[in-house]
């Protein structure tokens, strides 16, 4: 009897586009956000809600993990005001729960990506995010840099910065985020180096590296680069597991803690319009147009 090697068994398992084929403009938008929107494989099928054309499409799985940030989510909830004919659950990132309309709450769970290992004494830190005001603001940098405060600085040898600039913004403040980061880092007297993730990926010792993501959840809430680094043993400054959560491994080093029945009492859903307006104020028109294209509207 022939025993087929993994090589040719796997062909059928190659992931395909789950939903609608992306238009040229959408593909271009995705390219602008590369590598963050790239696909990865996990037991909780990650997808972008903004690519759904009909809610029935979602009934092919019981649980989905939405990788979208707040804007695509808002577009989605605006387009599908009620979860009509939907049988499955959608997990969204726990800090975005408050944008969920009441009608949708029974179909929504929450998730967060966590490291299962952490280097007690990291030797390096990898700070990343899109260096564009609409995606990485000065404010979000300052918030995220608090993660750095939790890291024991004394043993650190190096800080890597991956802050790609892309065509999202025309403001002069585009490079502010990188400037803020460098200023903060200089205060720590650590050696900071701006790198391309692809160059350091193969050889860096990720198992002693701590990840700091300074990107806002405006467009992407669950990005490929984070998974790629965590899969190689890097760790997040993450909270401990909670009793209410279930957990699945995405790699030997990290996974997803999720809650199919999050508590809604503590969060008050805001009105869609208010929310959208609030976020619109921090997003320039050119970017917003891109978001619209991304959401296929």
């Amino acid at each position, binding site marked *: 009897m*022939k025993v087929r090697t*993994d090589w040719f068994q*796997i062909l059928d398992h190659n992931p395909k586009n789950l939903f609608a084929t992306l238009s040229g403009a959408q593909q271009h938008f995705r390219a602008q956000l590369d590598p963050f929107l790239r*696909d990865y*494989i*996990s037991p909780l099928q990650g997808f972008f809600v903004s690519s759904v054309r009909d809610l029935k499409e979602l009934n092919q799985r019981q649980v989905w993990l939405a990788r979208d940030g707040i804007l695509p989510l808002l577009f989605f909830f605006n387009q599908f005001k009620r979860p009509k004919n939907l049988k499955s659950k959608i997990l969204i990132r726990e800090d975005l729960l408050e944008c969920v309309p009441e009608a949708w709450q029974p179909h929504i769970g929450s998730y967060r990506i966590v490291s299962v290992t952490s280097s007690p004494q990291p030797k390096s830190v990898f700070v990343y995010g899109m260096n564009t005001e609409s995606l990485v603001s000065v404010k979000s940098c300052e918030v995220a840099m608090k993660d750095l405060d939790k890291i024991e600085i004394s043993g650190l040898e190096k800080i890597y910065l991956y802050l790609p600039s892309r065509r999202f913004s025309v403001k002069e403040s585009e490079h502010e985020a990188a400037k803020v980061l460098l200023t903060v880092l200089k205060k720590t007297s650590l050696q900071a180096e701006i790198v391309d993730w692809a160059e350091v990926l193969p050889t860096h010792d990720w198992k002693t590296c701590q990840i700091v993501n300074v990107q806002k959840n405006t467009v992407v809430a669950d990005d490929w680069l984070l998974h790629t680094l965590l*899969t*190689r043993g890097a760790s997040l400054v993450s909270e401990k597991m909670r009793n209410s959560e279930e957990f699945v491994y995405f790699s030997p080093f990290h996974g997803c803690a999720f809650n199919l029945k999050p508590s809604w009492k503590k969060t008050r859903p805001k009105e869609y319009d208010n929310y959208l307006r609030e976020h619109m104020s921090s997003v320039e028109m050119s970017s917003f147009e891109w978001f619209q294209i991304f959401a296929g509207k």
Partner: protein
Amino acid sequence: MKEQNNKKVNSDAVGVLTSSAVAEWVSCRTIGANLFHVYKRLFQENLVVFDYNRALDFDEIEQLAIEISQKHLKTVYFIEHLPHPLELIRRLLKRLKKSEMPELVFHIYGDFTYYAPEWEELLRLTQGCRVRIYCASHRQMRLVQSFLRTSPNTIQYCPFAVNSEFYNFSESLRHQARRKLNLEGGDFVLLYTGRISLQKNVKMAIEEAFRFFAKARRRLHFVMAGDFDNLAAPFFGIHHEEGQYFQEIENLRMQIPVSQGRVTWAGSLEAEELRNVYHAADGFISLSLHHDEDFGMSPAEALSCGLPAVLSDWGGYTSFAGKNDRAFLVPVKVDNDGHFFSQRDLAVAFENTYRVSRLDGEQMSLRNAAAEKFSAQFSIDAVTNVLESSMAEPIEGQVLDVSAHFKTLAKRIGLFRLRKQPKVFKSPREALYKKIYGPYFSTLKGRK
């Protein structure tokens, strides 16, 4: 086992190019370090060491070429995986006439075919220079011979060295390791080490091992040590998304009934821990079909620790079976649907591995003897001897011509790298694929 004392083959200064940059592949880090050890023994104070690493820019490579050309070296040895020698050779040839060039000795690695465009150019440029190419296995030698027309003795066999001072067998260490790793139960411990990758067929190895052991009503503990990767089989246009192979194996692991045993992942281990799991295990398995499998450092270390091993009869693995009665090879076949193994061949290899392991259990000295026998061929000492006798012959080889199919491969790889072609080979049935990698099979017509 004690390594022999230092040796010295001649009094002329020779150069060796090492790399201070960390190699991307774990095995290449070991290979480069062990080869350097061999050369240090052979040439001692006559060895001039140069740092040729990936971080060098063109100006720095130029500077290095100047430095090498001014030393009037008899020979220059390229022992590291990367960077490719081409850039340096180009610059040396600008400074020196071919008759003034030092003898060039290349230890080639498994990705010789991937770097076909660079090798094609290098071998064309160095026509008229004195060249020697060392291949790490007999199959790789055949592969390279099929690409090049050379004068006699240009392409020679020299295995990569295993540090048998470290990877050997100790009965007391086995007891300690099994205690430490909680492997003292009756389960047969089958070990895989290396990258956990589609290229290595780890999932299939787990499936087939459990099929065999369950049928024989024996419990199995399959231990994997190494990092997962998503490199897949790009030559055939097979790509993995991040996390895909992990999920494949995780799904399989969950399906294995507890009554049949278990699969555990030991992580990516440091050398000391790796030696412990080699000692604790009862058998080793690797059914790799990786196209860069010119040698196989993981199986070599396992065999150096006396483990019986189920190995694909592929590329460099085949050389381990030469004088070794513990490497049980499983022939690799190919049909219209791709590569495959025969279940019967696999069962024979599993049974042999199990049988040898049980004999070891009764008499551990057998395992020790097997480890010593393996080291006699692949230790740093053994490789030093191989090189020493090889160097007794003057390096007068020349590459005369490159085959048409190697040129075709180089062209295809060039297009593949530029993403102008999604794959290098349409399928394993393609004539070019069989012509290129035929030497890595045992079962293709005329290859036995």
